[in-house]
């Protein structure tokens, strides 16, 4: 009965069923779906590596896998999660799907380049997976020289090539978003009427465009060093191994903002919709996104405090690193203030939003610890840093991803997911996450170093707690995979605006038609205007 309603109306999913109509599509919504499938696969692979790591670390001795294998596991976990999951995640899925709709456009500025971006991610991923299957890579995702250029006997070049290609996927996505926001806004859609999700993805695009080419050229130099022994990072030939670290982190620090800014954009949407109120301090949140993007390029040296870098460089980078924390704090305060006198719903996306704000706060605050020179000397390269970045990347970005996924699921699929199971999964994720990573702060301050296959026995209890947490966390991710897939066929049919949200994407049917809008809207409302929503609210 419900399926009959869907097949009568044309939308982006039923507009052609052939493989060709998907693999040669120019529709940003179909490309977003292609990306969803792709990065879910990468997340699964990265997650399997994480599970093996935590399984090994439950006991102090290196008894589950050999040290060579362990070194490959943490390397490949990092490479897959950073370059093939987190960097594309929100922009290439929800950004691709909703950025054009949110500004009232029919598509991105360059649809064919959008498709090319996806193929580049596939190609890059292909090389990375080949490297893993052929024998793996063991340099750490950070590829420090001269280990990666001279001493490692593993598939460094294949992996570097995979990352290089995936980098261009990222650059083209950013380029597309920047031009789209500048040139494709519907009449009346001024910059300050755009949803904050658009601002966040715009700022992310700027980072992608400016930062990614640097790691691309750095990987080229690593390739040249490895194959031609040009000596650029080899001290015996006059080169400087620390130069690599500067070049690497010049991208990789802004990259973490590529990974978190879109998540922040999602949270702005969720907090507003589920408080039924505009985001508090809209201009401040918008400018904070841009501020983070800019200042984020100035702090890379905080990864090099104990590298042999000069004391004065350390001072400058520490100082600037505190600057970059402020815009993030501003956002957290503004999201919290949005709840004040709102109408708060506890739907699953909002639970993920709450989780994000809480865990990102902790993760961000621990960033202040590592930004402090005196503390960082002690905790750098220990589990403290691992805990810090997992709090912001997983407690932050991945929670935002899950929140956005549930929020826009009815719009993208025309189906609603089962709310009870979804809430339970969110709780599992929150509890499992904290149990996994909070003990790691303690472990790190105790002195447990990173990338250790075996460790002194007194650290075991904390490691066991962490590994137990990882099991719960994994469960929290497996459950949505199941019930979301289930909902595609058996979930209740969703209407155009089940949440009573503002935003142009909710003015279209679910799933949206291929051309997004029958007529390009002329925008007269400010962002997050709920005055018309009352009539549209659907009960249940």
């Amino acid at each position: 009965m419900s399926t009959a309603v869907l097949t009568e109306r044309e939308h982006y999913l039923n507009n052609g069923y052939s493989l060709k109509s998907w693999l040669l599509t120019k529709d940003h919504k179909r490309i977003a779906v292609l990306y969803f499938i792709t990065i879910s696969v990468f997340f699964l692979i990265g997650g399997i590596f994480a599970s093996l790591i935590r399984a090994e670390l439950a006991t102090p001795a290196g008894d589950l896998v050999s040290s060579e294998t362990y070194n490959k596991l943490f390397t490949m976990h990092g490479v897959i999660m950073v370059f093939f999951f987190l960097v594309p995640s929100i922009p290439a899925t929800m950004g691709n799907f909703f950025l054009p709709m949110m500004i009232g456009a029919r598509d991105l500025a360059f649809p064919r380049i959008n498709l090319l971006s996806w193929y580049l991610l596939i190609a890059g991923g292909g090389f990375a997976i080949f490297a893993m299957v052929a024998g793996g890579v063991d340099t750490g995702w950070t590829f420090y020289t001269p280990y990666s250029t001279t001493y490692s006997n593993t598939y460094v070049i294949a992996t570097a090539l995979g990352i290089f290609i995936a980098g261009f996927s990222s650059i083209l996505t950013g380029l597309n978003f920047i031009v789209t926001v500048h040139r494709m806004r519907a009449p009346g859609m001024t910059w300050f009427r755009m949803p904050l999700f658009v601002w966040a993805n715009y700022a992310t695009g700027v980072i992608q465009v400016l930062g990614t080419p640097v790691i691309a050229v750095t990987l080229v130099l690593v390739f040249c060093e490895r194959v031609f022994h040009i000596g650029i990072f080899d001290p015996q030939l006059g080169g400087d191994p620390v130069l690599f670290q500067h070049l690497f982190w010049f991208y990789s620090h802004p990259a973490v903002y590529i990974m978190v800014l879109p998540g922040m954009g999602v949270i702005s949407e969720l907090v507003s919709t589920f408080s039924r109120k505009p985001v508090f301090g809209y201009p401040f949140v918008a400018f904070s996104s841009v501020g983070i993007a800019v200042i984020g390029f100035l702090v890379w040296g905080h990864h090099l405090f104990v590298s042999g870098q000069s004391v004065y460089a350390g001072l400058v980078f520490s100082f600037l690193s505190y600057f970059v924390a402020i815009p993030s704090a501003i956002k957290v305060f503004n999201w919290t203030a949005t709840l004040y006198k709102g109408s708060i719903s506890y739907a699953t996306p909002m639970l993920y939003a709450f989780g994000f704000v809480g865990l990102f706060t902790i993760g961000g605050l621990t960033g202040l610890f590592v930004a402090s020179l005196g503390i960082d000397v002690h905790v750098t390269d220990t589990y403290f840093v691992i805990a810090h970045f997992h709090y912001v990347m997983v407690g932050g970005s991945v929670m935002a991803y899950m929140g956005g996924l549930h929020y826009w699921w009815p719009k993208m699929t025309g189906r609603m997911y089962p709310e009870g199971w979804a809430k339970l999964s969110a709780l599992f994720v929150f509890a499992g996450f904290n149990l996994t990573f909070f003990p790691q702060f303690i472990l790190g301050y105790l002195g447990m170093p990173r990338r250790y296959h075996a460790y002194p026995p007194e650290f075991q209890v904390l490691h066991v707690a962490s590994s137990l947490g990882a099991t719960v966390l994994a469960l929290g991710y497996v459950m949505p995979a199941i019930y979301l897939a289930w909902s595609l066929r058996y979930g209740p049919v969703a209407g155009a605006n089940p949440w009573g949200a503002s935003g142009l994407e909710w003015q279209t049917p679910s799933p949206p038609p291929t051309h997004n809008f029958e007529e390009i809207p002329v925008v007269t409302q400010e962002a997050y205007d709920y005055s018309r929503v009352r009539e549209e609210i659907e009960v249940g």
Partner: protein
Amino acid sequence: MQIPLFPEQASSISVEVDRLLYFLVAVSVFFTLLIFLAIFYFAVRYRRRSETELPSAVHTGLTLEILWTVIPFGITMIMFAWGASIFFTESRPPDDAMQIYVVGKQWMWKLQHMEGNREINELHIPVGRSVKLTMTSEDVIHSFFVPAFRTKQDVVPGRYTTTWFKATKAGKYHLFCAEYCGTNHSAMIGWVYAMEPQDYQQWLSGTPKGTLTEAGGQLFNDLACVNCHHTDGSGRCPSLVNLYGSTVRLAGGGTVKADEAYIRESILNPAAKVVEGYQPLMPTFQGQVTEEQVVDLIEYVKSLAQKPAEQPNQTRGQAQAGSPAARQ
């Protein structure tokens, strides 16, 4: 079953680092609770009671924005200054620090005391005395990490890096390599033994060996350095007497301070910096000397700064390199 939650405080800087940590923890707990409680309170107090309710509320407030920008900024500046001050202390070894050389290689630590004691994966030091480590790597980047001392410093091939600490409590403390270096990175660990001064002296004199300076003097002869580098400065090569700590004028302009790094480079890559008035004639000894032997030679050259007449086979106990009087 004891679950350690906090590392021992065993160096003069540990207490200061931990104090900064407590401050950061206090600030973090405060803001975490503030946010968590605010969210919890608002979420309950303003929960949706009817599907059609529509709140109308203020959505901007400049005073509030300024307050919650300026106050956190002020707090972070305190954190910065405090952390920077500790870092300054950590990067300036006291003048009276005793010198120990460290060479890291896959996958072990090799340490040399001035008196000639050599250790592998273990470091014996006296309590209450500043210890300065001058370190290099033979292969990849490693990192010398002693959690109880709260110190860590990367060990880089091709150059020296330094760190220092002063143990305040006798005991046995973990030593870890903290920069991933390949297969047995997790096994590149050891112990630092801080001992009461008399126990340390006893340990020191335990094994018969020559001091670094003596070993260096022997090498200086064996490798025929002495054929060119005459003590009186005659000949084709610059005199090395009183070299250490002085400022050297280079051919082509420019000067350089004659520290450990300069001496090391002069041995392994002599053409990189040629002394003014001399030709680039010195051959390189790269591949002919290990990093430990380089250290011995450096200590010998440093000892030439004492008195011009001092000969290589002087008895041990007088080789007190690094004394303030010797430096110019």
